[in-house]
């Protein structure tokens, strides 16, 4: 029996030792572990860190990337177990708060990162913990919801980028008559339904509606929102989305557009680089969501992608802050934007890529990507409700009014102004 006990204890001890060794060790002084979900940007970050090392040759940064879907889980598990990185990329809004709320991140302010507060307010908002109003990350990129179109197809069919919704329908009709799918979009992948709404309908829904939602004056049964949804439903009924759109998932939509089978794609500015990668010969341009009548303000939907943060428990906070100061510099913003083709929110950054320049121009007249920005903090999130609601509506199983009512009802479970 004793032998059994001793052997058991020894085995357990060996197992414990093995599992302890499998954890990465904490970084030593002068070393920073950097975590991200962007493995594809590894080479770019090697360049950025080289640049940073010109000023701070004593800091060695190691780049570790994780699968995007699991990144939030991996990060918060590591942080909860005090095994987190020294510096890391964090997402924005609700997903950001999941990491910031338990106190895992170091507070950033004007004194430890000078110039931080000069960043645009909407970008900072995505990295601000609502509970204490403090900032915990340096925002790195914004994404824009708009309509991407194939310029060659447009020229061939003889249509111009539309300004109003009626013109959009007219253009779609001509494209369809020419045997081209007007919009590559499908609805099988849930989140694509949310991008459809923002990319196509922002100008109709309008900034005032967003302000009214935030102040609690309006909810999603509002005429502005419901009517806009109705027009989206008409677009689908007229067969201007991809054929059998309810079964077309995100990768299929991307293929339909990049292969030239479809003329337009309602989506995010983050699509531009992958489209070009899968078809380098593709000629594209972008336009903002059409307005209902000429003279209305034309809007794109914007959201913050994420930011860089320092672990509050890092042994190397000082070096981490040095890196944050670099990330917040105009010099970095420029390098980041022009290397990765992303829109840096840092003021004064100039873009060399003409498409990026164009998106930056469209951004001057924008509203937020509403559900992500305001209603991704609790369950059921506004995004989940909008996605499944629009999916159902476009399948013809709910009216726009019912969709608006369902969204309002879902959000009302935690949002006081909607409780009646």
């Amino acid at each position: 029996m004793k032998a059994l006990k001793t052997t058991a204890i020894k085995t357990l001890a060996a197992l414990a030792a093995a599992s302890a060794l499998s954890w990465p060790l904490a970084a030593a002084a002068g070393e920073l572990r950097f975590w991200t979900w962007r493995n594809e940007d590894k080479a770019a970050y090697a360049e950025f860190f080289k640049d940073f090392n010109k000023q701070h040759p004593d800091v060695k940064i190691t780049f570790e990337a994780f699968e995007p879907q699991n990144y939030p889980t991996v990060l918060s598990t590591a942080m909860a177990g005090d095994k987190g990185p020294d510096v890391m990329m964090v997402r924005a809004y609700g997903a950001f708060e999941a990491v910031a709320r338990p106190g895992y991140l170091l507070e950033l302010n004007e004194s430890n990162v000078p110039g931080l507060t000069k960043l645009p307010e909407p970008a900072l908002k995505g990295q601000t913990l609502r509970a204490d109003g403090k900032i915990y990350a340096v925002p790195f990129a914004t994404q824009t919801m708009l309509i991407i179109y194939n310029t060659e197809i447009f020229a061939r069919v003889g249509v111009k980028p539309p300004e109003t919704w009626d013109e959009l329908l007219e253009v779609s009709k001509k494209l369809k008559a020419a045997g081209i799918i007007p919009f590559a979009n499908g609805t099988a992948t849930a989140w694509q339904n949310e991008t459809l709404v923002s990319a196509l309908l922002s100008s109709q829904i309008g900034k005032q509606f967003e302000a009214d939602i935030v102040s609690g004056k309006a909810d999603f049964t509002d005429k502005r929102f419901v009517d806009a949804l109705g027009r989206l439903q008409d677009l689908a009924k007229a067969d201007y989305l991809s054929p059998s759109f309810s079964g077309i998932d995100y990768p299929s939509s991307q293929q339909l557009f990049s292969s030239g089978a479809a003329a337009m794609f309602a989506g995010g500015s983050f699509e531009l680089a992958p489209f070009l990668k899968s078809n380098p010969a593709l000629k594209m341009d972008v336009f903002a969501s059409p307005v209902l009548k000429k003279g209305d303000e034309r809007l794109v939907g914007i959201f913050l992608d994420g930011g860089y943060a320092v672990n509050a428990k890092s042994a190397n906070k000082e070096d981490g802050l040095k890196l944050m100061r670099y990330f917040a510099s105009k010099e970095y913003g420029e390098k980041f934007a022009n290397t990765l083709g992303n829109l840096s929110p840092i003021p004064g950054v100039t873009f060399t890529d003409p498409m990026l320049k164009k998106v930056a121009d469209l951004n001057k007249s924008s509203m937020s990507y509403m559900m992500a920005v305001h209603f991704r903090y609790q369950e059921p999130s506004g995004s989940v409700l909008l996605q499944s609601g629009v999916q159902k509506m476009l399948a013809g199983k709910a009216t726009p009014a019912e969709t608006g009512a369902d969204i309002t009802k879902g959000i009302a479970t935690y949002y006081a102004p909607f409780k009646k």
Partner: protein
Amino acid sequence: MAADLEWPTGRKIWVTALIVPPLAFMATFVVLPILSAFVYAFYEWQGLKREGFVGLKNFADVLLHEPWAPVTWRAFSHNVMVFVTLMIIQNGFGFLLAYALARQLPGYRFHRVAVFLPVILSTVIVALLWKQFLHPVFGLFNKVLSQFGFGMVTTPWLGLSETALWAITLVNAWHWVGFPTLVFLAGIQRIPPDIIEASRIDGVSEWQLVRTIIWPLVAPSATVCFVLLFIGAFNWFELPYLMVGLEGSPYGSTDVLGLYFYRTAFGNQSSGNQDFGHGSALAVLMFLFVAVVSTFWTIRLRRREIELS
């Protein structure tokens, strides 16, 4: 004498060395996680940070209160549908296939391998394969239907709320039908041939043979197939996750408990909120339901085996 004493000691060490590693492994990776999920379910969580003790609140929420309860019950009803459907087509068809194979009809050697082949494929491969087959534009399935003059029934199978759950259930049956087939076949082959021969001489019909002789004698195989299918159907996750996504697209019509548990506990792209309390409560309830029902059902089925044999 000394040798007599030494032998048991050596044997003891030997036995210990064999038992302790798997025991430690089970304790660390099975018992401990289950126990910790039990504990987690009684707390409020901020992401992965544990806050206050809330007693049975998380359980009550997922079973009774908005916004969780309707989703839980919808997902549960889908699990039930999947279970019943698979019971009929996967196990039922598996039994028929096993009987056909046991009859050694021409080509049975080839078919024995062919039927079992999908079982060895990984779920990821099966899911991607069938997603391509069922694709509304490029998919083989609709193309074949049109070819044979059934063009009017082609539809985006995975995109419609009426067909999506059935489509992935059938894919599951295609993937796994070889397993009950193999188990039933082994059961049928264990029946002494003289019993079957004697009944044939007595002139029983094929149907009587299956119903009154073969079916009762493969009761132990049925127990295995039924209980494993039950456990599988209520823990179903990989196939729907890969084919329709975490949200149970379209609009929750393919949502099952496994998917709901995962997105509640770990969050997803569109909500980012990790809620370990409600997630653990769901996991514990699923575990209890599967454990209790399968235990009682196994006992009943075992009794049936004895009655029938």
